[in-house]
């Protein structure tokens, strides 16, 4: 569904990604793990058009999306829940969720039944349901993360990019976030998940890639990576 081929990206003159390839098949959850500064977020940003790749090819379904603007890529069905959540602080929770479906309201993507999807999203994120009129900027970190994920789902996406959904959250909330990812997976949502909690990510994912200094060092089925001695030593705490 999402295919990244030989992607290179840089900030200014510093090349951060040295040609990585990742394949996310339809209906599967693929995780990209690696230490801080390995280039995980850069990969996500390059896929969703927030930065322009230097080289390589990114396709979504049968469409080449390399170098397109973020808003064009969103219209083609890629939802990106960015690092740091980036909810709209002065808008209400409900308006934030609605904006997730902006391209549907404006008929840039098939509209479908937006209102019932909205209700379903609220059922899925009960913490948000109690706070629909509250301004997003006043939510706790965990609630903002739920909101960022609800917003992404509202696009009715072909693929969801989740960048560090557990970042800065209390353990109980991390668990809740992973439960939601599990439920999205059960609904058949295709996901590319970037995580520092490698063990939890590999538990939910079908397939994994390990990113090291801008290169993919190992990849394989999640089960296999979990038992790989090198991966275990570096990312799973021995």
């Amino acid at each position, binding site marked *: 569904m999402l295919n990244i081929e030989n992607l290179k990206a840089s900030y200014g003159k510093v090349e951060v990604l040295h040609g990585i390839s990742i394949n996310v098949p339809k209906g599967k959850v693929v995780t990209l793990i690696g230490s801080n500064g390995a280039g995980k977020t850069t990969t996500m940003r390059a896929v*969703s*058009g*927030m930065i322009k790749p230097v080289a390589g090819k990114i396709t979504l379904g049968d469409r080449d999306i390399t170098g397109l*603007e*973020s*808003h064009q890529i*969103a*219209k083609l069905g890629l*939802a*990106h829940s*960015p690092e740091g959540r*980036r*909810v*709209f*602080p*002065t*808008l209400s929770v409900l*308006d934030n969720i*609605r*904006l*997730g479906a*902006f*391209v549907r*309201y*404006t008929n*840039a*993507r098939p509209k479908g039944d937006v209102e019932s999807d909205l209700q379903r999203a609220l059922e899925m994120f009960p913490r948000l349901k109690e706070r629909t009129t509250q*301004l997003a*900027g*006043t*939510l*706790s*970190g965990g609630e*903002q993360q739920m909101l960022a994920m609800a*917003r992404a789902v509202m*696009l009715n996406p072909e693929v969801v990019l989740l960048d560090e959904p557990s970042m*800065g959250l209390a353990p109980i909330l991390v668990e809740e976030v992973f439960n939601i990812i599990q439920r999205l997976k059960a609904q058949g949502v295709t996901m590319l998940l970037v995580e520092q909690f490698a063990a939890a990510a590999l538990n939910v994912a079908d397939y994994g890639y390990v990113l090291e200094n801008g290169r993919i060092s190992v990849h394989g089925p999640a089960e296999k990576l979990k038992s790989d001695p090198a991966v275990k030593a570096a990312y799973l705490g021995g």
Partner: protein
Amino acid sequence: MEIFLQLIYSGVALGMIYGVIAFGYQLTFATSGTLNFGQGESLMLGALVGLSLVGNIHGGPYLNYWLMIPLVIVFGAFQGAFVEWIGVRPAIKIKSEFGWIMSTIALAIIFKNVAENIWGKDDLKFPSPLPESPIKLFGANVLPMEIVVVVGALAMMAAVEIFNRKSIYGKAVVATSNDRDAASLMGINTSAVITFSYALSSVTAAVAGVLVAPLTLTGATMGAVLGLKAFAVAIIGGLNSGLGIIVGGLILGIAETTTGFYISTGYKDVPGLVLLLLVLAVKPAGLFGKMAIKKV
């Protein structure tokens, strides 16, 4: 007392004009972090284009005052979009922090020169659509057009506010103001939103121009001072506060008319500008300015 009340009325009308222009500054600042320093010239061009349609200077009058307003709105939208396209977008693209300041000022000077060549250097009288004899309101005189100015200014600001709150496109504008990158991820074309905000800000200025023109004289130089004072209002009230610019506009407008009468017209601008200096020293975000609510 009667005179005082009358000065308040004129101050309110003047203040609302400042408020509307300041509102235009806010619109573009919110979405792009940039301002059109030629906002006063947008007002001037709107007024002069309106004059050509309703006055007898270019073979007219072609239209009556109220039918002219929609055309001035269309003109303002194109004028604002043009400023954004030529002067601001290149600066945003290269993330230049100050490029847009000089380019919007340059465009303002060009607009003024063009206006001088088309409409001449002298101030022109703008025919008033309403009787020019004052009516009594609580014992003091007020011009019917002054009431139209106040109502029109408030109506424009309210219309934009309702659009932002109720329509999905308005919410997209607010989202762009909050976080441009995140807004693009929602599929919002944020460049188009910025162009739109420039168009809208020039529309409000152009309409303010034709509203105020029957009260003042119209001419190529009318915009510069209005634009500058409205900028002071935006700073006094706060660049992100809707209430701030209304209050700021009223303070400046009333200070101007009362000082002009009781002290000297030579000093009429002083109290407002002293206030500006005070605000900058004591509360730089403006009287009603607020820092964005953020919690992580």
